[in-house]
């Protein structure tokens, strides 16, 4: 997994609540047996005017000019600013894969759906929860200032903006210690768990007495 330490990038505002994983990556793209290549189909049904299917040449498809990701001022965005309950719905890890493949590394929202939130950390994505009022301020700042950039520092757990960008932000965010550690180091969780193989065996031996029908 790719490490996440510190990043400065443009933030793109997706101003709607309950963005579900079907919207993030529609089901026809879930037929892939690979982990990569989902980026061009991120938000497919909002991003393009036609119906997307796997195998299409996305560069020739009609773009929806009204969709926020298609506006040139957000072309190089790597931070997604979102509303409540982002990532609700299906457990598909294809959703964080698509965001990551597109180039997004940070999502800032007032709340996330649990499974999506969890899946982000397995893929080097940093989901940040901030109070709704602060999210409102960020949306306003992004809309008001073209080229508005944020710096995300995971080590310091801070979000800042440059004074020159129009609005000044300097806020801290909370994050679970274990998740922060894994992201900072880019750790393989399976290897971490296998360090406790002996504990797992001890647990199993105990359970063989209590629930023998499961062994």
């Amino acid at each position, binding site marked *: 997994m790719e490490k996440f330490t510190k990043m400065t990038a443009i933030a793109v505002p997706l101003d709607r609540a309950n963005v579900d994983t079907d919207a993030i990556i529609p089901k026809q793209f879930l*037929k892939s047996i690979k982990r990569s290549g989902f980026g061009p189909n991120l938000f497919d049904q909002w991003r393009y005017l036609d119906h997307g299917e796997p195998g299409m040449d996305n560069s020739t498809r009609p773009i929806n000019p009204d969709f926020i990701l298609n506006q040139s001022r957000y072309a190089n965005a790597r931070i997604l600013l979102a509303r409540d309950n982002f990532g609700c719905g299906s457990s598909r*890890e294809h959703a964080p894969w698509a965001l990551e493949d597109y180039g997004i590394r940070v999502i800032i929202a007032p*709340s996330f759906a649990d499974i999506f939130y969890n899946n982000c950390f*397995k893929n080097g994505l940093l989901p940040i929860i901030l109070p709704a009022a602060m999210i409102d301020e960020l949306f306003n700042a992004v809309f008001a200032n073209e080229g508005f950039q944020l710096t995300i520092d995971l080590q310091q757990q801070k979000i800042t903006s440059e004074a020159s960008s129009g609005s000044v932000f300097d806020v801290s965010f909370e994050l679970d210690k274990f998740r922060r550690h894994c992201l900072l180091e880019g750790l393989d969780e399976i290897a971490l768990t296998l360090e*406790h193989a002996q504990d*797992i065996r001890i647990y199993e031996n105990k359970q063989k007495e209590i629930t023998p029908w499961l062994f």
Partner: protein
Amino acid sequence: MSAKTLYDKLWDSHVVRENDDGTSLLYIDRQLIHEVTSPQAFEGLRTANRQPWKLSANLATPDHNVPTTDREQGIADPVSKLQVDTLDSNCDYFAITEFKMNDIRQGIVHVVSPEQGATLPGMTLVCGDSHTSTHGAFGTLAFGIGTSEVEHVLATQCLIQKKSKNMLILVNGQLNKGVTAKDIILAIIGKIGTAGGTGYAIEFAGDAVRSLSMEGRMTMSNMAIEAGARAGMVAVDDTTIEYVRGRPFSPDKEHWQQAVEYWQNFYSDADARFDKTITLEAGDIKPQVTWGTSPEMTIAIDETIPDPASESDPVKQEGMRSALSYMGLTAGKAISEVPVDVVFIGSCTNSRIEDIRAAAEVVKGKNVSAAIKQALVVPGSGLIKQQAEKEGLDKILLAAGFEWREPGCSMCLAMNADRLEPQQRCASTSNRNFEGRQGQGGRTHLVSPAMAAAAAIAGHFVDLQSIADNSYLVEDSYLVDDSYLVDDSYLVDNSYLTNKG
């Protein structure tokens, strides 16, 4: 020892070790595997040269991509075919038990596992699918995971987890006739919202829940995730134990008594503390129909479509406007006047034998309205299909004008060939009414099987209780006649089994 909730007991009995940072290593008793969220996990296992930790903990079946029409020709879509073939070859390679597409036991994972007794009380169960919450109906800690975690469980039989908070949802009293588990859960989601359960494990309790069959409890737990909760549970009682008895993967005679005594511990202690409690009166719940693009956008059949202007929160108001526009509906219109194009009875929410019986009961001797372009019944498993045919339900449904299909996820998410055309409006017994869920531009209204069947006959949504000929409501035999739970010979006769897991 202090009082514990059902969730506390399930959690505590599966902690392998507690880490310093507040996370725990949680042991997983059962993993269900399907073709969509597993290929990258198997590939990861191979790349790292790892083996599955405990083979017998895994059970696989293809469901999302399988055709529901004649399967003799295989899968027409090459991309779908590759995904199903990949599951087959991965299961063969690692020697994981799989019910392949043409096995009578194949079906939707969340239907197959309980039916086989692979879902048992007191266990932890995961699957790369959010509707894994279904299995909580058995007093099981069951939740959906992503593909990285599928790989993690394959390799270690464990997950690194942080404990959720406890929520109790009490449904007191008795349901009115024609009101089902689906209506209860939609009413709950309407009340607490799609994020209401985020961060919580929900326990459903109260007289109305207690009197539900296992099928009904599964319908409720299935949609806990639509309320934001990864897990939704019901405590173990006699209904649970009787359902589990004699199934292929259930404990054998030698262990049965020990198992029953163990399972009977899985309930919340009387003085257990919940972080949040929600109470509903069953008698207040009417048949539900969703009107928007989120399961929380639900109303009773006798209500009108709400007006965004009445919502004070601007983000929610915008959500309502955009939902009305997508759904092609206007505020103030009675939901019972909304015409339907397609009816879908199926999915891991409502494709079990009780659901098919309920639909057949409503349409018996009647005809699907000429206004309906397609009416589909897709049983949840090959064994349910077989049982329904034994009872003659297929003939009732076919005679009324329904199509009778092979088992799979089908039009719930339209990964196979079953899908809505743009702007088609569907009365669906599935679980999600998101934009494009049943096909790009398709408009989904979530309802119970009886409500879907009634809409097929009427050509629009209709109050079951207002239909003149509602003998099936007075009779109500499909709700109380659960002889199939005892009889259940279609499962006890498991001569087809070669691998007893």
